[in-house]
């Protein structure tokens, strides 16, 4: 499926990205790390949206749950390497509990349920001041250390984050190549046929959703350690919306779609900061136009041209 040339190109891309922060100022390194954090979340979301064919509008809530769990644990002195898996497990469990009622009924219900869930999580973060610090948030979150080696400076922390991002992406890649993962795509393309072949639709969709949530939990732990200060705003439902649209714009169900999507929703708004509101307005309308002209996302452009050429 993938040629060796493409694999080489991918490898080169990763190496260039890994070395890129050497030439950047501290804000640039921060942005690259933030990019990695959102990559984990959007890759997880792509599993839910692109492969299991479900709409989730709650990825920011899972990111937030992961971030708050990691922050509270690390403030209490627990190591990052304990809190990060804990954040993932917690998000996985919450994902199961939320997905179970919503997935009993089909597609758009999960969108509504996750949307409402995100609002509720945001309310809890803002109102339960004793636990979450309310609107003041939690500050002074320590960076992790590895084998006694501190990851406090931004460059080592970037490589640490990049390593785990690649690990998460690698695990998802493996998952999608396994018989399990093929069942995901089968139930997206034709749920009824998949069911008749013995795939338990509800169980698989639920699992895909919960794994997607767990990825966001891991991303949240890194988010807390990166920014070292968390408050409810980045976990608002509008961020879930942006992540969903990012995945779709990049090309949902394409393994690398989230990379492009995350560039569009995280990096471009930073570069175009001086016109941020206009950028978002243009982004919104661009999504509408994209759905009409290019429902497969930006990564489907080459195929579209190839098909046109073939017809001629």
């Amino acid at each position, binding site marked *: 499926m993938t040629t060796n040339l493409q694999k080489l190109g991918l490898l080169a891309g990763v190496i260039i990205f890994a070395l890129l922060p050497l030439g950047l100022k501290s804000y640039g390194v921060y942005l690259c790390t933030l990019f990695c954090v959102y990559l984990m979340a959007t890759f997880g979301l792509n599993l839910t949206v692109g492969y299991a*064919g479900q*709409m989730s509008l709650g990825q920011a809530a899972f990111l937030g749950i992961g971030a708050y769990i990691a922050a509270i644990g690390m403030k209490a002195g627990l190591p990052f390497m304990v809190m990060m898996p804990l954040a993932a497990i917690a998000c996985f469990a919450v994902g199961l509990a939320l997905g179970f*009622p*919503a997935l*009993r*009924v089909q*597609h*758009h*219900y999960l*969108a*509504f*349920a996750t*949307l*409402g*869930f995100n*609002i*509720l999580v945001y*309310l809890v973060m*803002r*109102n339960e001041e004793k636990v979450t610090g309310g609107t003041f948030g939690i500050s002074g979150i320590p960076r992790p250390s590895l084998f006694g080696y501190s990851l406090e400076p931004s460059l080592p922390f970037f490589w640490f984050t990049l390593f785990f991002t690649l690990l998460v992406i690698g695990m998802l890649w493996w998952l999608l190549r396994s018989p399990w993962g093929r069942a995901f795509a089968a139930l997206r393309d034709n749920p*009824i046929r998949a069911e008749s072949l013995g795939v338990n639709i509800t169980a698989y969709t639920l699992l895909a959703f919960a794994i997607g949530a767990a990825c966001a939990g891991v991303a949240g732990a890194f988010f807390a350690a990166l920014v070292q200060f968390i408050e409810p705003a980045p976990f608002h*439902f*509008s961020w879930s*919306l*942006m992540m*969903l*649209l990012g995945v*779709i714009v990049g090309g949902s169900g394409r393994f690398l779609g989230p990379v492009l999507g995350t560039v569009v929703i995280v990096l471009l708004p930073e570069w175009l900061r001086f016109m941020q*509101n*206009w950028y*978002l*307005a*243009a*982004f*919104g*309308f*661009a*999504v*509408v136009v*994209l*759905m*009409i002209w290019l*429902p497969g996302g930006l990564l489907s452009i080459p195929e579209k041209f190839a098909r046109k050429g073939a017809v001629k």
Partner: protein
Amino acid sequence: MGDLIQLLVSGTATGAIYALAALGFTLLWQASGTINFAQGEFVMLPAFGMLFCMGVGMPLWLAFLVTCAASMLILGLGFKRLIVDPLIKHGVIPLVIATLGLSIGLKQLVKAGYSAEAHPFPSPFPSGQWSIFGINVSYADLGTLVLAGLIVFGLQTFLNKTVTGRAMQACAQNTDAARVLGIDVKKMVLYVFLINAVLAVVAALLVTPTYLAKFDMGDAIGQKAFFAAIIGGFNQTRGALLGGVLIGVLENVVGFYLSPAYKEGVALVLFLLVILFRPEGLLGKTEERKV
């Protein structure tokens, strides 16, 4: 006791506004299979439209009428022709995504192009309250109830008693059979989009005096509309009413007796309960799955 009755009345009034937005939402779904995630922005835009008209010197009633016309043209006809028609043949999901994008686009357009502030909006009803047996009911709540009630009643009568209304229902129930019977399905669907646009303007007129006109005011209204529609039953017009009023009343009761901070969570909890125990909605009928 007096407290409770006041809460019930004002909750029903708020719920009636949710119900108006939910009603449009349900009608669109029934007639054309459109799930409009920009429903909240369809209420926000007319609010600013009316403010603009009043800004150039029109009285509120004239501003309302002008905005209704503009809304029918843009949010009714324009929305259908430019966005729904090209997308509906690809199924529900692309249209959902497109309306999500539309929602962000419209919000940010107002924020960037006009204002990020909240703007006061005049109430169509006199201030003050009506006291009876020690219970105080504000004229605004009373007026909202009466107006929303009249519109819902009028719409029901139109749908059930007139030939056009019954033809519209026929399209919603079975498009193919309606076409065989000689009903102009396209026209009926267009009517539904126009009705939705007008309902949105009425909801804006009623809700903006309390919510204030702000670019993100549609978030809350849109969400309540979705939840109201699902709680009541997605395929029943009456369901939207029940859902809206239920959410409005419970929000008020929870906000007063339990915790004002978690008022916004009421709709979600209700929604989760409904899909756990009665996924077709309180008044809904089960839809058979089509292969």
